[in-house]
Each structure stands twice: as C-alpha cells, then as structure tokens.
C-alpha cells in the first residue's frame, strides 16, 4: 500500500490496484510514472498475481501527457521526457504478472498508450479512446495500435485521431468487455481473479510469449 501526490496503490489478496488521481483529466505526471513503477515493484515482492490499473473519478482513465509540461520541453529535455514515458510503458509490458486496465473514461494520447500496454482492457460505457497525437502535431500509440489492430484499423485511428466510444472499442477488440460505470471495478477484479487463479509461471510464460509473437524474426525478412 502506498501513495504519492497523484497515485494511490493497494493490494487486496492476490490482486494489486493502482489508481491515477490527478483531476480533472488524470494527465500523466511524474508522480504517476514513479507511482506505477513503485507499485509494481511492491506488488512483485508481495506476490501479487494480477494488477488492475484505473483512473480516479468518472471523466478520465488517463488524459495523456500534460500539454503544459510538454510545451516547456526543449531539444535537451525532450529525450528525458520520452525516456521516462518509455520506462513506465515498458514496466507494464515487461511486468511478469498480467495487468488489467479498467478504462473508466477518456484514454487519450499517452493515456491510450498506457491502456494499450496493459494486457487486458475492460471499459465502462463512459470509456473513450483517442489516438490524438496527430491532432496536436505529434505521434503516439503507433507501435501499440499497429500490433493490437493490424494496419487497416490502426491507420483509421492513427490518421484521423478520432474518438472511439466504448461499444466500438469492444467491437474492435480494444476493450474485452463493457459494463456500467458502477460495475467497472468488479468487472476488472473478476478478470484479475480469473488470471490470479491460474498457475503464475504459466501465466507469466503466456504473457511473454504473446508479447513476442508478432516480433519480426531477424533471419526471416518479411519482404
């Protein structure tokens, strides 16, 4: 159990919970980036078997990078900014227990990246997904969307930056289930419990194998 200015985390039996709490839009702060990594390390030591990641409130899961923080980046500091983000995303992807994202509202830009690097996503009817990078003249979530959706659908979302509502996200496979806002944490917990009930070594091996399944093989060029 722990917290910092924008993040809270706690465990309930074999399941660890992380809540991003930076109202109103839960924009991704350094406290979040640090909090996620600290929480995962703590859960690992305590023997958690699955993790649920969500956002506080009903408006946003995570609104992505803080545009004010981003505006102040210089050629020197942009590298550190990207690296810190990448470390957080990698921590989720490489964590040896599955992570369930409970998408309670907006997941846009870097917030969408966060959700997409989780292993299973469930959403409330208020969930809204947006690969909005292109709209602010940037690029984000290319890598994840291309892997999760294949090129055809990934291009549609990445090139237009349009909003995907919960039902469409479910149809596309970006959300594995959609429930009412009141039922969301129970739904995420149910997924986490089902994962936690399976042999942890097998689950860890499955996560690794699926993560790597679409990696190109060096000896076998695709073209």
């Amino acid at each position, binding site marked *: 159990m722990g917290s910092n200015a924008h993040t809270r985390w706690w465990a309930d039996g074999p399941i660890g919970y992380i809540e991003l709490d930076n109202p109103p839009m839960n924009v991704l702060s350094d406290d979040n980036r640090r909090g996620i990594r600290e929480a995962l390390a703590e859960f690992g030591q305590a023997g958690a078997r699955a993790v649920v990641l969500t956002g506080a409130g009903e408006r946003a899961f995570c609104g992505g990078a803080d*545009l004010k923080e*981003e*505006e102040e*980046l210089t*050629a020197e500091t*942009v*590298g550190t900014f*990207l690296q810190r983000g*990448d470390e957080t995303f990698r921590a989720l*992807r490489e964590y040896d227990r599955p992570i369930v994202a409970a998408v309670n509202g907006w997941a846009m830009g870097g917030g969408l990246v966060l959700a997409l690097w989780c292993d299973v996503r469930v959403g409330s009817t208020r969930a809204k997904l947006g690969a909005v*990078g*292109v*709209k*602010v*003249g*940037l*690029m*984000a979530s*290319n*890598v994840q969307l*291309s*892997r999760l*959706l*294949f*090129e*055809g*659908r*990934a*291009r*549609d979302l*990445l*090139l*237009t*930056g*349009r909003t995907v509502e919960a039902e469409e996200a479910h149809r596309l496979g970006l959300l594995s289930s959609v429930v009412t806002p009141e039922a969301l944490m129970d739904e995420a917990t149910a997924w986490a419990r089902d994962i936690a009930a399976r042999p942890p070594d097998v689950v860890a091996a499955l996560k690794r194998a699926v993560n790597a399944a*679409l*990696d*190109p093989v060096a000896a076998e*060029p*695709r*073209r």
Partner: protein
Amino acid sequence: MEIVEAAGISFAVVAGACVGADFERALEVDLRIAGDGAHFSTAGVADPIACGVRLARLLGEARAKELILAGRSVDAANALRLGLVTRVVPGAALGDTAMGLAAQLRALPPLALAAVRDAVRAVRDLTPGAAVTLEHRHFRRLIATQDHRAAVAAFFARREPAFTGE
C-alpha cells in the same frame, strides 16, 4: 470505386463492386470506406499472392484467409467486421462522408500526418524496441514544429488551430 487524396493520405470510396484490379488498388491506399451496397471479392486479382500478404498485414491472418482462400464475395457489413473497410454508411450519404473525411484530414497538421502515415507502414517490420525508437525520432522532430505549438496554443485558447506545415 473512387480513390480520393487529401493531405497526402489516399482513401478508397467504394459504392458498389470492388473486385479484381479495383480490389488490389483498394488495398494499396491508406483507408477504405464504403456505402452499404458495396461488395468485395478477391476474384480476378492479378497477383493473388501479393494480395494475400497485403491482407494479412492489414487484417491479420484469420481474416486474410477468410477473404483470399475461397474468393467469396463479402458485403459491406462483413467488410466492416473484417476491418477491410473502417466505415460503412448508407449509399446516398457516401459522397458527403468522403468529403467529410477529406476535410477532416486536411484540418490536421500535415507534418504529423505524414509522419504517422510513414511510421504506421514501417512498424510491422520492426521489433517493439526499434519501433519505439522510430516513433521517438519522429516525436523529437515534430515537437519542435510550429504546427505543434499552434495546436497546443489553440487547445488552451479553446479555438480551432490553423496549420502551416512548418
């Protein structure tokens, strides 16, 4: 079938039959939208092998095989289910929808749009690490552009941004 080009992005607008050479052309563009009377078939394509590879990359293996192996015709609803098209509207609304999509693309910052277009093509050949490196390289360049600054300023001022491509 009509191919529309807007802001360097080309998309196929399919009102009726999309077969043979049309089908192959439709796979080469960035996006595909259709009217509810559209139907698609790989029958009569000049290079079925290239078509199969392209479909696998666009839709995944299962969906590619569903389309290419039996050569059956699929209607608009099934094309949407497969992800072959990403939007289906009533045939009478197709022209307006296409114009709307073109306008939507033209309103986006052109440098970012071109970068996303190129990166999304490149990603599938790269390991996640190399893909992230490529994305970061684009990001570093884009964050220094006037268009990015204009987008952020417009966001805070709650107005529509105007982009210059610089």
